[in-house]
């Protein structure tokens, strides 16, 4: 067998390309990705396209119904609901967009390390993780936020910390699958260091599971962030935020429903978009999310 053609390994970019194509050919992926990208683009350009300043109040037009001037009406302080809805995702996307990669990174590394170490240490630490997961998340977060105060510099590490814990489970389970395989045994028998084994043998095989998990965690985190805002522990007024807007407008829901509906549509469309994309990503990467997600 003499080679007639040279063979080129598909580059990382080419692999990303095929994964991307694999995502958008699925209905869930096409819809989900469109929603997510639309939200990201809107968040970027919103300050330049919105018709009003989000702080601009109009005492004569409080809780006005939709009109040609205010397409979605105004809120209880006479601020434009459309403007505030369009601007309302920026803070949430920024905070969770930073916290999600952090959560996946620390949770992933700890999980891979436990998975590789195995044995008693692994057992003990996983029980601690279980204990953490059994507490209601909102309580855990409120404790930290009440102690350290609100604001991005507290919210990001808090979210990253708590949402990294379920990632530990996923990373550990995926690592367990890989560690049992002979190529890891072969690397051990050659005498490679633990760090080399993690970097060369484990990470490339666990990465896909972590990607999908990260996408899922993002949507959970968005929901958590909005819930915190709703409770008054997230974004401080007058910054517009969906959670906060829902909290403010819910008292007047019966005669001004758009005040609640508009931010709700904004939040749910983003979360649904992320979920659909994560599903399509999992299928494109060949990971069955239904089997791997414990929480």
């Amino acid at each position, binding site marked *: 067998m003499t*080679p007639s053609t040279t063979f080129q390994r598909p580059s990382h970019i080419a692999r990303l390309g095929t994964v991307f194509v694999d995502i958008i050919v699925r209905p869930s992926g096409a819809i989900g990705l469109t929603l997510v990208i639309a939200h990201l683009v809107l968040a970027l350009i919103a300050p330049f396209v919105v018709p009003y300043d989000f702080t601009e109040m109009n005492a004569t037009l409080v809780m006005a119904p939709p009109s040609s001037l205010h397409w979605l009406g105004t809120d209880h302080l006479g601020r434009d609901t459309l403007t505030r809805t369009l601007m309302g995702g920026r803070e949430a996307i920024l905070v969770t967009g930073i916290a999600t990669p952090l959560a996946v990174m620390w949770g992933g590394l700890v999980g891979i390390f436990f998975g590789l170490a195995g044995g008693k240490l692994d057992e003990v630490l996983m029980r601690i993780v279980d204990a953490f997961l059994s507490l209601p998340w909102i309580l855990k977060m409120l404790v930290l936020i009440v102690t350290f105060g609100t604001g991005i510099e507290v919210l990001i590490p808090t979210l990253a910390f708590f949402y990294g814990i379920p990632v530990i489970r996923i990373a550990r389970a995926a690592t367990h699958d890989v560690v049992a395989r*002979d*190529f890891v045994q072969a690397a051990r*028998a*050659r*005498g490679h260091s633990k760090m080399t084994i993690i970097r*060369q043998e484990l990470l490339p*095989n666990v990465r896909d599971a972590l990607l999908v998990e990260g996408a899922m965690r993002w949507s959970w985190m968005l929901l958590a962030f909005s819930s915190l805002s709703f409770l008054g522990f997230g974004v401080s007024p007058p910054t517009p935020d969906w959670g906060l807007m829902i909290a403010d407008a819910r008292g007047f829901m019966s005669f001004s429903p758009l005040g609640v509906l508009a931010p709700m549509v904004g939040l749910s469309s983003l979360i649904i978009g992320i979920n659909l994309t994560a599903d399509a990503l999992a299928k494109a990467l060949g990971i069955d999310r239904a089997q791997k997600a414990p929480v």
Partner: protein
Amino acid sequence: MTHSTMPTGSVISVDNLSIGFRGKAGHMLPVLRNISLDVHQGESIGLVGESGSGKSTLALAMMGYLKTGLRVLNGDVSFEGQKMFSQRRAALESIRGGRLALIPQNSGQSLTPTLRIGAQIQEALKLHSAQPSETFGARVIELLSQVRLPDPASIVERFPHELSGGQQQRVAIAMALAGEPEALLLDEPTTGLDVTTQAHILELLRDLARDMGMAMVYVSHDLGAIARVCDRVAVMYAGEVALEGSVRQVLRDPSHPYARGLLASIPKLSDICLPRALDGRPPAPGGAGQGCAFVSRCAIASDVCSTSRPDLALQPSGARSRCHHVDKVHEIPLSGDREVGKRALSDETSLSLKDLAISYARPSLWGKSVGREDTSVPTVEGINVALRRGETLGLVGESGSGKSTILKTIAGLLPPLSGEVTAHGGAPLPSKVEKRASTELRQIQMIFQNPDESLNPRQTIGQILAQPLILYFGLSGQALTEKTILLLDQVRLGGHYIDRLPSQLSGGEKQRVAVARAFAAEPDLVLCDEITSALDVSVQAAMLELLDDLRRQKNTSYVFVSHDLAVVRALSDRVAVLYQGRLCEIGPTHAVYGAKSHPYTEVLLGAVLEPDPDFTPELSASDVVELAPPAMGCPFQRRCPKRIGSICDTVAPPLREPDYGHKIWCHIEEI
């Protein structure tokens, strides 16, 4: 046996059947091409070929079943005159499992784990038996004794996991027999079973076919098994029948180059030479071109072979062969001619194992703290072996005999309970791999059974081979690339493989990469753990040649573990026979395979099948699988056909040395 019963009518008739799937480019790619085959009543026909030859697809098509994505391109299959592919679903279901039964490869997985054996067989009876349901209980017992399971009344109450692999296979056969089928399809029914178990199952199938007058279609890659149970054989290649004839015509003097190559690539106990490798690989579906599918691998191919596809033509002998040059096939020899050369072995010790004992049981903290003694019997015990530089030691035994366990301990992956592993006569090696020095690690390399598992799917071949080169020699840049290409050349792959991923390679190519990775470390000792058992026979022969070449060039020692006694014989200088983690016999290959040997070695050798229709295996011991070694006495006491008395149960057998260097542990004085 060939002409014992003249066929009366055909039970299954395959008529010009082609099956294919739609490829990425949109064309239909054929998996089976123009198959015509009749299976007559009371006849057993074997389908053989390499993996991917379409033999299993054909067997399933005989049930009217296609795997997802496959569809019939033309032709049909009829069962007792009924066309299977134009049947309605309900009609098919009444035939399948009842009048036409399938026995799958891994029956352990085809039994429901939560259902008792009796209930499973009753289920089959409910579906396919016309008898009143009150008789089912008795019928289950009858079926179980028919497949020669000892004590059927107690088997009925057991769950599948409580049975051994061989017993599970017997239950699967009993279930298939429940519907009193007219034809039985068997898809590799003994693959994955131990040699002794396989031999017993084959004898059972042979007798059942004869007693019940069923037609049998036996799919296997193992010509030895085919020779034992079949009357007729169809050799499949690239989705075609290449040769079809009586078992004698096909196995004694096949009139097709592929069948001859396949036969020559099988290692035989009687052969001193290495089996002959069949180079190249079969064409992918749709890649056969317009000529003969075998043309690229054929030694006698001429121009006409690449331009016109030969017909399956009737030969004077009565066989049908798809070859343009039937007159010339006899130029292709039926056995290898490459002798395993005598190598000058130095007296330098490469490896020595002293009193090695290994246990998987870990003493619990609680047990230790209350001072409880560990009473479990170690998995492996009393292993004393020394290996000289350049020597090859074969380790044989059934599954569970501790062969792989010993390799893991040598490699440092499994610390022993007691005993020492020493290399080069120096100080004992640290038992844990993490504590070993870099040179100690480099000198011992291991190759694993399944290359799909031992190569990281996310790394290119270049990255895989670079790991030992960087770790042990600190190579980088141009030197690293050059050395990687050199390694690929050494295992006859070529430098263009460097950028490929393992999934783009065939099984044989992947295992070559694994061999190259082991030799990248320039080791003194290579541990080979069943490294050919996941490969096709033709590929296995090439792998054995490669290993022989490499040990000549580099003076490397091998510890070669295999359950296949013929493969071990082909390569080893010395052989150690293990039973339940204890040595039974060790000595030069010719002595162990010779006249004087341990009763267990005799049992193993007697069960080896040869691809010869006149060969009868000698089955002396039962095929009961033991799960743990006995606490005292001889490890083989419970199954030994030559047991001399209670001394075997109580006293550890003494060492006898019938010849210099040939050691046997047995109570029998005159071995």
